[in-house]
């Protein structure tokens, strides 16, 4: 746990700016997706092993709380995908390094361009079901 605190403290103090924050967001979003993916594989697989367990999971995902979690998951997936593309770009074409800050900003712009409409649709649907259910 000491390591975790050290990592968190130093991450805030260290002045690595755009690249450092991209690194942190990439790790955090990756951890979030990997954790949910583990649950998502098991809940989907339960359709084969136990129907009541599957129905229980589906019922859980229809609640507003899990709906909000799903929007958070969407944010993680979109950021991780776009930033991953930037990392691949810089790794395979090192001459892109001179544009690294601009590329980091482009990732944020693209993130909001993709996330706001798709997350908005999901939020709208949750509110509809809360009102009319």
């Amino acid at each position, binding site marked *: 746990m000491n*390591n*975790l605190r050290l*990592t968190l403290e130093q991450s805030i103090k260290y002045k690595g700016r755009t690249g450092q924050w991209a690194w942190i967001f990439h*790790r955090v979003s*990756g*951890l979030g*997706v*990997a954790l949910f*993916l*583990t649950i998502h*594989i*098991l809940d*989907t*697989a*339960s*359709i*084969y*092993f136990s*129907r*009541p367990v*599957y*129905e229980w999971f*589906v019922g859980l*995902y*229809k609640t507003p709380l899990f*709906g909000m979690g*799903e929007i958070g998951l*969407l944010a993680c*997936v*979109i950021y991780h*995908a776009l930033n*991953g*593309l930037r*990392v*691949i770009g810089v*790794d*395979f074409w090192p001459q892109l390094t001179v544009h690294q800050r601009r590329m980091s900003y482009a990732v944020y712009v693209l993130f909001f361009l993709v996330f706001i409409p*798709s997350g908005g*649709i*999901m939020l709208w*649907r949750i509110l509809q*079901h809360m009102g009319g259910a």
Partner: protein
Amino acid sequence: MASTALQKEGEAVRRVPFMVNRAEALWWAYMRLSGMALILLVLGHFAIQHIINDVHNLSAEWVIEQRWALAGWRIYDALMLAIGYTHGLRGLWQVAQDYIHNKTVVLVIKWVLIIGGGLVLLIGAMALVGTPWRTSTP
């Protein structure tokens, strides 16, 4: 570590390791290649299953009679399972390696990832292969 430098007698040779471990280099490449495939697979899955289709219409009957009735969707899901989960496990592996400094704890986590991750992959694969032979009524 292989070194091709020819050493003259009495002359110090500076050995520069290109990559410490070949497996690490292959995993580095795998993360980038699988990442590119996952951008298409996972964003496609999210758009179809979570945005175009409403989770409120999801049911076991629909999955068995409609979605997994098509082999194409089971192949799509199998690709996501294999590529996506191995990408995720390798990511967890790297995070453990980077932030946990106790070697024993790191070793335990790696074995949990190998055995636990392998089990999750097996369970997912069993469902993908076995479900079409199940009837949709419980």
